[in-house]
């Protein structure tokens, strides 16, 4: 397949998915529609995870932190200040970005698996804090009775699940379009260069840590917007929405979707959430067991490791590469692909316990 044909195929697939997403609420019942709205919300969080994991090379289990910050901030604004969607989305973005700004010093100097560890701790602590800070968050009972949203001033509140779903779809679409446009600018180049070879990028005079910090805050804002959409979609929020399992599911979805691809992140996350919901409907009580099995299976199914797989996928999708030699000879540049400082440049990153 020529690169042009491949690009066309990817675009056609994207448009097809978008059409399906728009037509969806007319073909299923209200409950399923609200389920899809929530899936879409998690898909957007997945996008922020992909931005960090795949593009910035900071694998994260902690995007539930800014997601929760955005959700609670939006909920409070919705209850006490304004039911206008624009206000809530901006509040969510600001809260998520602020959260990320406060936690960025914890993350930005670490790399690889240490980032996973630190972000996991951040996400979990956020949930714990949300559960304890009863006066603001309603504790483990959560915040209920959030009024219906009106997208802009003067519009009627969205009363149906279908309307709320479409609102969610529009906001998610706008955010993703904005992100894709941003990443197509030369700024996206710098991020990819930093992920490829951090030491080399520094040596060219780039302030990699600064780029990573900006990306982290941006990803926080995206997750915060998703939080605001969660409030719209389910009109209720509790710490259970941000648990460890949610973080892990997001990471799984992003990995399945190809880590470095934004469209892949949405599709992968949606797939994983759908499987979870389907399993828990099918076999109530056994869902976690089967889901655990799914994680294990995923880990086994990718022959070159999930990072390798996503790199291959990214290679396929990034049609501008003119594969003269097969993609197989490409040095590992996946999720763990940020060589630690001082490591010989170009060395394939293998987990150091296993290089024998």
């Amino acid at each position, binding site marked *: 397949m020529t690169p042009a044909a491949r690009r066309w195929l990817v675009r056609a697939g994207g448009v097809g998915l978008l059409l399906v997403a728009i037509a969806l609420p007319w073909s299923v019942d209200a409950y399923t529609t609200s389920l899809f709205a929530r899936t879409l919300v998690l898909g957007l969080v997945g996008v922020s995870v992909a931005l960090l994991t795949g593009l910035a090379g900071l694998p994260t289990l902690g995007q539930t932190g800014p997601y929760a910050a955005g959700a609670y901030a939006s909920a409070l604004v919705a209850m006490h200040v304004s039911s206008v969607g624009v206000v809530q989305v901006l509040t969510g973005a600001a809260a998520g970005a602020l959260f990320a700004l406060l936690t960025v010093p914890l993350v930005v100097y670490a790399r690889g698996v240490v980032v996973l560890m630190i972000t996991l701790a951040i996400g979990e602590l956020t949930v714990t804090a949300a559960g304890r800070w009863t006066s603001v968050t309603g504790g483990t009972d959560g915040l209920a009775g959030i009024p219906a949203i009106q997208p802009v001033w003067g519009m009627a509140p969205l009363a149906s699940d279908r309307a709320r779903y479409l609102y969610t779809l529009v906001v998610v679409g706008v955010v993703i379009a904005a992100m894709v446009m941003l990443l197509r*600018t*030369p*700024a996206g*180049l*710098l991020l*990819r*260069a930093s*992920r*490829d*070879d951090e*030491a*080399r*990028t*520094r*040596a*060219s*005079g*780039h*302030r990699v840590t600064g780029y990573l910090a900006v990306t982290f805050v941006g990803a926080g804002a995206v997750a915060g917007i998703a939080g605001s959409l969660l409030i719209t979609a389910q009109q209720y929020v509790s710490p259970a929405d941000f648990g460890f399992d949610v973080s892990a599911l997001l990471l799984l979805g992003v990995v399945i979707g190809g880590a470095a691809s934004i469209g892949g992140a949405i599709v992968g996350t949606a797939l994983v959430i759908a499987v979870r919901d389907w399993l828990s409907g099918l076999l109530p009580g056994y869902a976690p067991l089967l889901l655990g099995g799914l994680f294990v299976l995923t880990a086994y199914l990718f022959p070159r490791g999930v990072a390798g797989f996503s790199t291959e996928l*990214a*290679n396929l999708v*990034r049609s*501008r*590469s*003119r*594969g*003269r*030699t097969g993609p197989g*000879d*490409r*040095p590992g*540049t996946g999720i763990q692909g940020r060589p630690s400082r001082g490591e*010989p*440049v*170009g060395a394939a990153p293998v987990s150091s316990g296993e290089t024998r």
Partner: protein
Amino acid sequence: MTAFATTPLLTAEAVVRRYGSLVAVDRVDLRVADGERHALIGPNGAGKTTLLDLIGGATRVDGGRIRFDGRDITRLGPARRARIGIGRIHQRPAVWPSLTAVENVVVAGWHQAGGFRGVRTRARYRRRLREPAMALLDRVGLAGVASTTAAHLSHGERRQLEIAMALAGRPRLLLLDEPAAGLSGVEVHRLAELLAELPRDVSVLLVEHRLDLVYALADTVTVLHDGRLVTSGEPDEIRNAPAVRRAYAEAVR
């Protein structure tokens, strides 16, 4: 010594680098004049690469000082040194594998083109970054593979690409660490041409084992042995100096 000795661009004064009890570079003095082509030779383990690392800022000195263009840079990190005009080419080509060739040059030349201010509009980006990058690729003979990802370039092409990247940083001093290593005969020939064509506003400090390349290019040759400076002079002097022969013979023995 040479005609260039009057206007030094780079001076290293008694620089020392230790690794544990091993003294890799032992009180070495070095002067590179403006526009000079200066080669460092010596047997394996003589401290050549370490000395380049010290000048490029990849490792810090344990003693002595380094001046560049009249300014003390002993304490500056590699990024700062890159910004003030010290470019570097590594023994193993350091390129960004998932970026295309032209993108590699763009990212490498980013700061010389004004950083983010240089890319505020698409037209500006083309004019300030993309077009100069294409011109550089053309100069090193890579125009045909400009939009190939670096991961898919051959070793020799990556070396050429790295030279283009180093030049994109508009260096006043180019540090070359065994640029001919791993290249085929044809590629070495092309490299020699490329280096010979470099404008004289770029000074070159070259570490190389291929002595034919060194004698063809260098104005001055400095010989290191066991971390110490043995001698320094014009290629003809060095070629016949007994001290040089001794250093190499000792290393072989």
